[in-house]
């Protein structure tokens, strides 16, 4: 059938299983918006306050579902507003297709109104990008974008479509939904060698990351942990893969990870790194990281091997396939001595003191989890609240803790939470933020209201930029340069102004009451939680340092 470029776009989106689209209209995508009007029953569109919010929403949708998130923006500023969202998705390997309009091909290169070379701008923050210059190439280019975004190591792909291409017509042939075509090539010798090393280890530890989430390898990972009796520590990106109450779960590793996780890796004779990339927040000192251990790395991306830390063995492929292949070669085992030693370290784990008369971060998080339950999706911004959430949320399943790990994007949370809520209207979605991050993109409140996305936003409000200030406290002799902006924002009034419900709490009883009420309202809510600006994220290993430099108070 003969269709125009915009109709082809809509057809391919439907064909690729896209049900939800986040975006913002504009001049260069008027044809696309017009075509989507006819598809509004098949593709639900969410128009955000700002394109950045739309990009984070597409990202949050993708993180929560594992499906490719789709965001649409116009040329020029519409496209550049996506950049932070695309970079966020890129750093955390989140599948996303970003579609931008551009000025017509005859206007390209002439500094036309709202023209920007977005393909050039996004080159280093996408897996790949395309400029579609002929309508005949559009359908297959879009299909390629979906294939690339959700195959192998996942990531964002941008497709830039000049306006005349969205109007030009050509023959369209429907195609099938593209499934990830990645196949793991198993290396039997390498698997045997790895299994032998694991079987012979006396002090083994598994260190796993976001690859286990995107590779849906949680069941295989737990099977291996339990069969071989190996304790496991996780990165920020993998919270929830192993339930917080499972005995072999050591919890968070790295800069703000707990004592036992970090000491276990430091003292291990074998580290099995699964779907993780030895980032500087975990391998703070690459020379010293797990230096007593034989390191075996499993990753789908061969370029991750020996990038930051030199490893002894590597197994390339999807974590799920590799772990499944490894499992029969692994002996049933237990390491009582080693676990006993780790148990002693666990006694040294930092435990903050309760105080019901004020709001203590860990108690706020605890109260949230009690009320929101195990089904809830927790979405954070970036800063102290993010690490408190990582440390104290009761993580029980994958894809239920969404956070910007690699890029550390303040302002990520609200958009991402809306994306997650759009994906799972029946699950509670709790956006845990700080007053710093929240000021960046709180404008998305209007989106929550427009589409009645009842996200509960809990603002850990210490009225300072807490993480920056914490570093200044510890490393800069309390010189609080730029971190105490003295804002007087009244969140209850602002919430009301946007059309949502706002609460302000200064002690735990108030918070519990507000949270209880918020859970019943079925409308977007903000809860302003006043916390002390001296609260710190502990423990903390200073950047580039080792576990013996851990700060515990």
């Amino acid at each position, binding site marked *: 059938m003969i269709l125009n470029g915009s109709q082809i776009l809509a057809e391919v989106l439907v064909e690729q299983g896209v049900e939800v689209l986040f975006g913002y209209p504009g001049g260069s995508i008027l044809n696309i918006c017009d075509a989507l009007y006819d598809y509004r029953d098949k593709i639900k569109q969410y128009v955000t306050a700002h394109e950045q919010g739309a990009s984070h929403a597409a990202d949050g949708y993708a993180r929560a579902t594992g499906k490719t998130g789709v965001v649409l923006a116009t040329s020029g500023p519409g496209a550049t507003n996506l950049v932070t969202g695309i970079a966020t998705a890129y750093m955390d390997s989140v599948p996303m297709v970003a579609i931008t309009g551009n000025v017509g091909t005859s206007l390209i290169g002439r500094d036309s109104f709202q023209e920007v070379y977005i393909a050039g701008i996004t080159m280093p923050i996408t897996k790949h990008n395309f400029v579609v210059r002929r309508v005949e190439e559009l359908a297959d280019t879009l299909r390629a974008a979906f294939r690339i975004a959700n195959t192998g190591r996942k990531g964002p792909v941008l497709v830039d479509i000049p306006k005349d291409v969205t109007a030009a017509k050509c023959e369209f042939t429907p195609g099938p939904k593209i499934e990830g075509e990645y196949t793991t090539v198993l290396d039997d010798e390498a698997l045997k060698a790895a299994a032998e090393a694991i079987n012979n280890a006396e002090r083994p530890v598994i260190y796993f990351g976001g690859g286990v989430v995107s590779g849906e390898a949680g069941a295989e990972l737990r099977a291996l942990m339990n069969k071989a009796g190996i304790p496991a520590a996780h990165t920020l990106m993998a919270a929830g893969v192993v339930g917080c109450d499972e005995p072999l779960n050591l919890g968070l590793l790295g800069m703000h990870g707990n004592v036992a996780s970090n000491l276990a890796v430091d003292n291990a004779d074998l580290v099995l790194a699964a779907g993780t990339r030895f980032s500087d927040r975990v391998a703070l000192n690459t020379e010293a990281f797990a230096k007593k251990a034989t390191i075996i790395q499993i990753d789908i991306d061969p*370029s991750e091997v020996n990038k930051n830390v030199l490893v002894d063995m590597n197994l390339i492929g999807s974590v799920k396939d590799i772990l499944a292949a490894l499992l029969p070669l692994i002996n049933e085992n237990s390491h009582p001595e080693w676990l006993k030693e780790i148990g002693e370290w666990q006694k040294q784990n930092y435990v903050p003191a309760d105080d019901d008369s004020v709001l203590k971060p860990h108690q706020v998080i605890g109260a949230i989890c009690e009320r929101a339950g195990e089904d809830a999706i927790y979405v954070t911004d970036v800063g102290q609240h993010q690490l408190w959430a990582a440390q104290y949320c009761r993580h029980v399943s994958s894809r239920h803790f969404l956070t910007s790990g690699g890029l550390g994007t303040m302002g990520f949370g609200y958009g991402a939470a809306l994306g997650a809520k759009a994906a799972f209207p029946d699950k509670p979605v709790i956006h845990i933020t700080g007053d710093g991050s929240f000021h960046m993109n709180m404008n998305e409140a209007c989106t929550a209201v427009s589409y009645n996305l009842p996200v509960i936003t809990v603002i850990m409000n210490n009225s300072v930029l807490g993480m920056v200030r914490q570093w200044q406290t510890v490393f800069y002799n309390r010189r609080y340069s730029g971190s105490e902006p003295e804002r007087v924002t009244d969140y209850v009034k602002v919430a009301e102004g946007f059309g949502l419900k706002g609460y302000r709490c200064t002690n735990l009883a108030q918070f519990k009451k507000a949270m209880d009420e918020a859970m019943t309202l079925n409308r977007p809510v903000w809860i302003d939680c006043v916390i002390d600006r001296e609260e710190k994220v502990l423990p903390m290993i200073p950047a580039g340092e080792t576990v013996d430099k851990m700060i515990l108070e």
Partner: protein
Amino acid sequence: MSKQVLSVLVANHAGVLARVASLFCQRGFNIDSLTVSATDDPAISRITIVTEGDRQVLEQIIKQTGKLEETKKVAPLKANSSLFRELLLLKVEADEKVRREVCGICEIYRAKIIDLTVQSLIVELTGNPNKIDGFLTMMKQYNILEMCRTGVTAMERGYSVQTID
């Protein structure tokens, strides 16, 4: 630190050179020289990169370049089984006092004189980069007016052909 010549087959698309250059820039990899040329297959171009780094860096360069969507193959070329060639154009001040000497050196290196004026001449030399370096060392005693080198292009010796898997 060691030098490494990479022969990279890429899709012959607009922007592919920018992608490779952007990657090297982003990750702080060195480019000593880079040449792009057509191959016998119009859909494929060859980028020959001379780069430098320790073992870990070279491994990263090869893998990261290989990860680009439009990269079809990255082949690190071994010095002992490959041919490296570069073209030099050199404009030297050479009046009658030194012209004979200059021509003598050119003869030894089998460089061709392709332009001549009363005060200057232009020399063309093709060869292994080491040979060109050697020639330039000799020519430094004269007044070099202008110089350009193409960068290395390379091919494996023998019957075998670099193909896309």
